[in-house]
């Protein structure tokens, strides 16, 4: 399987400002890659380097085994890009904007644009200046997805979208993966990336500090439970559960963390009178960084 994105010691400094430091990364064909990091980490810098909007000060990048700068036009045919701050001339109508962008790519079936707009609940006849921030973001999503590109590069694609539309977006990503498209998406939020990504990388201060398959993360996932009982509690049964930690029993309430599947827990609970149960989502990001073992080609965040 070929690499769609391959980065070798890719670096970018803006004058004396740090942008990106010696980034090594590969993304395979058909993969959905989540690119996480706090503000100013270098996510947009990486993405703009891939699109030849800016040029590296060190290292190399390949898209489909070609130089992003020398083959920019050919590569851009195969890429759909959503900028972190998607803006277009606001004095035009949505359909006018999308038709023009489609024409730059040799045209996209009208039906495809209407389908996407329909799913995202975007009014094609509206003037862009009259749209809310989230609705403008939808225009950006449509133009990125409409030509079914081999590679989708999405910089914070869900910013400004309401939860319902975020779900639609995740569906679009899943469909893209099912169709064999590769997706590289940046985000601040682990949960949204984790929902669709095969792998995630975390970048901090211009360096990749973690890189892991989401499936492996899930295996380590820790759920926190907070259970209130209506009857007596068999403390020893809980203490004997595999993978349990931090067990505290306070009156009718038991709190603990569980690092294994909840099957055994459910068997124990079945023998109790349960009044209420609360399980918190595992904080994958925390876990990710805590348990992370550096893999080949990944920089440790040593001199950050």
């Amino acid at each position, binding site marked *: 399987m070929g690499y769609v994105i391959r980065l070798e010691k890719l670096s970018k400094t803006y004058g004396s400002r740090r942008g990106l430091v010696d980034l090594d990364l590969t993304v395979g064909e058909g993969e959905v890659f989540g690119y996480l990091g706090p503000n100013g980490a270098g996510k947009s810098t990486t993405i*703009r380097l891939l699109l030849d*909007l800016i040029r590296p000060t060190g290292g190399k990048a390949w898209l489909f085994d070609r130089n992003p700068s020398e083959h920019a036009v050919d590569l851009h045919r195969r890429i759909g890009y959503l*900028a972190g*701050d998607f803006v277009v*001339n606001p004095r035009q109508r949505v359909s006018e904007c999308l038709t023009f962008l489609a*024409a730059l*790519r040799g045209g996209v079936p009208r039906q495809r644009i209407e389908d996407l707009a329909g799913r995202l609940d975007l009014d094609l006849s509206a003037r862009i200046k009259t749209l809310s921030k989230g609705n403008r973001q939808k225009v950006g999503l449509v133009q990125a997805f409409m030509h079914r590109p081999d590679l989708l590069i999405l910089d914070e694609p869900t910013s400004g979208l309401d939860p319902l539309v975020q779900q639609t977006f995740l569906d679009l990503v899943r469909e893209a993966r099912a169709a064999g498209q590769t997706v590289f998406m940046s985000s601040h939020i682990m949960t949204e990336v984790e929902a669709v990504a095969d792998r995630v990388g975390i970048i901090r201060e211009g360096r990749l500090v973690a890189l892991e398959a989401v499936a492996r993360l899930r295996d380590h996932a820790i759920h926190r439970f907070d259970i209130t009982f209506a009857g007596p509690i068999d403390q020893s049964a809980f203490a004997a559960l595999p993978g349990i930690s931090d067990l505290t029993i306070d009156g009718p309430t038991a709190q603990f963390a569980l690092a294994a599947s909840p099957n055994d827990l459910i068997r124990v609970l079945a023998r109790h009178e349960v009044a209420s149960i609360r399980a918190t989502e595992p904080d994958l990001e925390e876990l990710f960084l805590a348990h992370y073992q550096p893999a080949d080609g990944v920089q440790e965040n040593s001199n950050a």
Partner: protein
Amino acid sequence: MPNVLTKTLWDSRRGLAGFALGTALVGAMYASFYPQIADGAMEQAVEGFSPALREALNMEDIASAAGYLGSSVFGILVPLIAVIYGIATGTRAIAGDEEAGYLDLLLSHPVSRTRLVLHRLGALAIGSFTLAAVVLLAMLAVRTGARLDTITIAQFAAQCVALGLLATLFGTIAITVGAATGSRATALASSTVLGVLCYAADTVAPQIGADGARYLSPFHYYIGNQPLRNGFQWIDLGILLATIIVLGALAVVSFNRRDLAS
């Protein structure tokens, strides 16, 4: 199928229509004052001017149609508005759109930077020549009524072609500075300052003995050899065109080399 050039023109249609009609209206209005001038009013008014000043303002024979139009309508008003149009359009073409964030999207499509610059340059040229054509039509409309028929249609056309090139040239300066720097303010300021300096070099410099300076000024190649009297000045037009081509090439090269502002 729309492309960058047609879309640029379409998006700027209102501004272009405003500029073209405005310029044509102002031009036609002042042109239609000619009969009063010819009757001697202006001759008397400029009698007190020194010969140098008269020459500077192309007023040696203000009473002739070509002399009047060459000093007023095509000497100041129309080129001023046309150059403002060119500079405004050229500033927006690269640096303005880049600062607004529009270029990220365009250049992430299968559009090379070279193509973007050339299409924007093309849109500027088409806009400038549209403006010049509307001015020409307005002149032809008032030509007989304003007793301007000593100037042939070809002579009017020659002056308007020079006008189109002049506006394109100053717009291209703004494009080139914008392509090199990405700064809207720099593109706007430098092309405006250059415009003022060039105008001064053509009109004021000869008066203070710096006669050679005018040959550096596009305004000289626009009107110095009086197209309204002498028709098409092919060498002058060629010099304007060549300058545009050289500046355009500089814009392409510099735009290809640098980072896009984020």
